[in-house]
C-alpha cells in the first residue's frame, strides 16, 4: 500500500481528530464534554474508512457501508451514554467524571 499526498491530506486531519478526542477524553471533567470527545474519535474512524475506500479501493463500497453503520452505532452509544449520565446526575447532582470513584482498588 502506498500513501500518496492526497490521501495523507485526509488521513492526517483524521488522526489529529482522533488524538484530540483522546486528549479530550482524558482531560475533561464534564461527562458531556467527554461524550463529545468520543464523537470526535468515532468520526475520525469514519473519515478513515471513507478515505481508504475512496482513494485506495475505489471499486467497492465496503468502507462506506462500514462508516454508515459506525455512525448509527455511535448515535446509539451516545444516546445510551447520555441516559446514563442523566441517571448519574439524578443521584449525585453532578456530571464530574472524577467524582465517580467510589469503587476502586
Amino acid at each position, binding site marked *: 500500500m502506498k500513501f500518496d499526498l492526497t490521501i495523507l491530506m485526509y488521513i492526517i486531519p483524521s488522526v489529529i481528530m482522533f488524538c484530540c478526542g*483522546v486528549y479530550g477524553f*482524558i*482531560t475533561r471533567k464534564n461527562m458531556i464534554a467527554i461524550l463529545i470527545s468520543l464523537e470526535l474519535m468515532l468520526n475520525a474512524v469514519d473519515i478513515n474508512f471513507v478515505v481508504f475506500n475512496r482513494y485506495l479501493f475505489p471499486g467497492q463500497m465496503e468502507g462506506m457501508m462500514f462508516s454508515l453503520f459506525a455512525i448509527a452505532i455511535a448515535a446509539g452509544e451516545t444516546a445510551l451514554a447520555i441516559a446514563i449520565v442523566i441517571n448519574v446526575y439524578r443521584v449525585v447532582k453532578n456530571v464530574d*467524571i*472524577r467524582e*465517580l*470513584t467510589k*469503587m*476502586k*482498588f
Partner: protein
Amino acid sequence: MNLNYTIAVLILPFLTFVFLGLVGVKMKKKAAGIVGVCSMGVTAFIAFAAAFTYFFGTDQGQVIDGVRQQLQVFDYTWMQFTKNLVIKIGVLLDPISAMMLIVITTVSFMVHLYSLGYMDGEKGFQRYYAFLSLFTLAMLGLVVASNIFQMYIFWELVGISSYLLIGFYYTTPAAVAAAKKAFIVTRFADLGFLIGILILSYYTQTFDFITLTSNPGAVISSAGGATFLGCSAMAWAMTLIFIGGAGKSAMFPLHIWLPDAMEGPTPVSALIHAATMVVAGVYLVARLFPIYCLEQGTMTIITVIGAFTAFYAAAVACTQSDIKRVLAFSTISQIAFMMTSLGVASQMLDNGVGYMASMFHLFTHAMFKSLLFLCAGAIIHSVHSNEMTAMGGLRKYMPICNWAFLFGCLAISGIPPFSGFFSKDEILVAAYAKSPLWGIWLAVVAGMTAFYMFRLYYKIFWWNNPDYGDHKPHEAPWTMTLPLIILGLLALCAGMIPFGKYVNLARTVEYESGINWMVAGSSVLIALIGIGLATKLYLKENPKPDRMAEKTPGLWTAAYRRFYMDEFYQYITHHVIFAHVSTPIAWFDRHIIDGTMNMLARVTHSTSYSIRRFQSGNIQSYVWIYLIGALALATIVMLCVI
C-alpha cells in the same frame, strides 16, 4: 551328631525374650525369673555341647590335616543385596567362636542365676530377664556370625540391649543419661564399622568371613591399589572396622561410655560391661585377623591405641572411689591389653602368640572380671552404696565374698597359679617379641593393675571398720553366692587349660606354648611390688594416701576426673555440635529457608498492595492505561519485528 542344633542357642533366648516381653507383665516375678534362668541353662548346655563337640568330637570333619576347620553349621539367607552380597544368618563354628560360646553362656548363666537374688523385689523384674535374654541372643549371634553383616546386625542388637539394661532404672536421670551416652558413643563407632564394611564389601564383593579370611592376600589386592587421601582403600576399611571395635571395646578415646554404664544393675555390668560385650571389639579384630595381619599400618594403630588405653585406664583406676568405676577402668585397661596383644601379633612372629594370648586373656578375664563385678554387686547389695568410703572391714561380714574377691584380684594381678597369670604372661611374651618397648610398657601397666586392684580390695574389706548401724552387712543369699563360688574356682583354674592347643592363629591342633619364665618372673615381681605398695598404703586406715593426693593435686585430680575426657566430649557435643551446628541449622531452617518461602508470600502481598493504585476508580486513568497498553503492545512488537 550334626552340629546344626547350635542354632538353638539363638532361637532359645529369642523365644524367651519374646515370651517374657509379651506376657512377662502378667506373670509372677519369680516365675519369670525361673523361666529366664532355665532357658539360659538349656542354652548354656547346648552351647557347651556344641563347643565340646567341636573341640573334641571327631566325626564332623572338624580337624583335617591337623588343622581345625571353620564349620558353617547353619545358613539361612536373610536378605540379598546383590548376587554376591548376601546377609546370611548363619552359625560359624571355629575355635574362637566355640570358645566365646563357652564364655558367654557361662557368664550369662551365672548372671541369670545371680540376678534372681540380686534383683529380687525390683520393679520390672520380668523386663529385666527379657532384656537379659535379648542380650544373650545378640551376643551369641555376634560371635557365631558367619558373615560380617550378620555380625553388624547383632552388634547393633548388643548395643541396644546394653542401652536398655543400662537404663533399666529409667527413673534415675543418671542411668538414662548413661544409657544414652553408651549407645550414642558406640553408635558413632559403629558408623566406622559400617563404612568399613561398605568399603570392604565394595572391593571384595563378599561379606563372608570364611571367604575373606581364607585368602587375605586376595582381599588386600582386590582394592587394586585404590587410594583415598593417601591411604590405601583397604587400610581405610580395616581401620574403620577397627574403630567400630574400639567403640564397643571402649578404647581411648571412645571409652567414655563404659564408666558411666555402671549406672546399670551390677549383674548387667558383670555380664555386658566386663565379660562379654566389651570384648566384642577384640573378637571382631580377631575374627578378621588374617586381613589385619597384612595391613601393618592398621596394626600399628591398634597397638598404639591399645597400649595407651591400657596405661590411661590403669592410671585413672588408681584414683577412683566408686568401686564399680574402678572395675570399669580396670576392664578398659584389661581389654586394651587384649587389643595390644592382637596388635603386636603377627603370623610370622612367634606363630601368632599374641593372637592366642589375646583370646586366652579374653577367656580368663571374662571369668575373673565377672567374678569381681558380681562380688561388687553382692557388696553393694548389702552396703547400699557404691562408694569405697561407705565400706571397710567387710571381710568379717561377708567371708565368701571376701575370698571370691581376693581370688579375682589375684587373678587380675597375674599371680600364679591364678588364671590371669597365664594369659597375661603370654601377652607380655608377645609384646616383648614385637619390641621390648611394648613389653616394658605392658609390664608397668600390669604392676599398676595389681596396685589399684589391691587398693580396691583393701579399701573394701580391710581399711577401717565403720559403724554400719542397724543395717549390718550380711552375706548374700545362695543364688548370689553360688555363682561367686563357681566363678572363683574358674578364676583359679581357668589358666591351667592348654589354651593354645584349642585356639591359635593357624587353628592347628598341635601348638607349642610354654611359660616364658624370664618374662613371667619379671611380671610376677612387678605385680608383687604393686600389691606390696597397696598393702602398705591401704591395709589399715591411715592418712598417707590423702597426703599423697595432696602432694600432686593436679595429677591426682586430673586422674580422678578421668583426664577431663568427659568434659571434652560434653563440650564437643553440647557446645560445638548442638550449640554451633544444630541450633544454627534449625535457625537457618526457620528463618532463611522458611523465611524465603514466607517472603515470597509477603512480597506477593506487598506487590498486590502497591499496585492497587492502578485501579484508581477514575475512568480517565483507566482509559489512559488502556491507551498506553495498546500503544506499548504495538511498540514492543514493532521494535522486535522491524
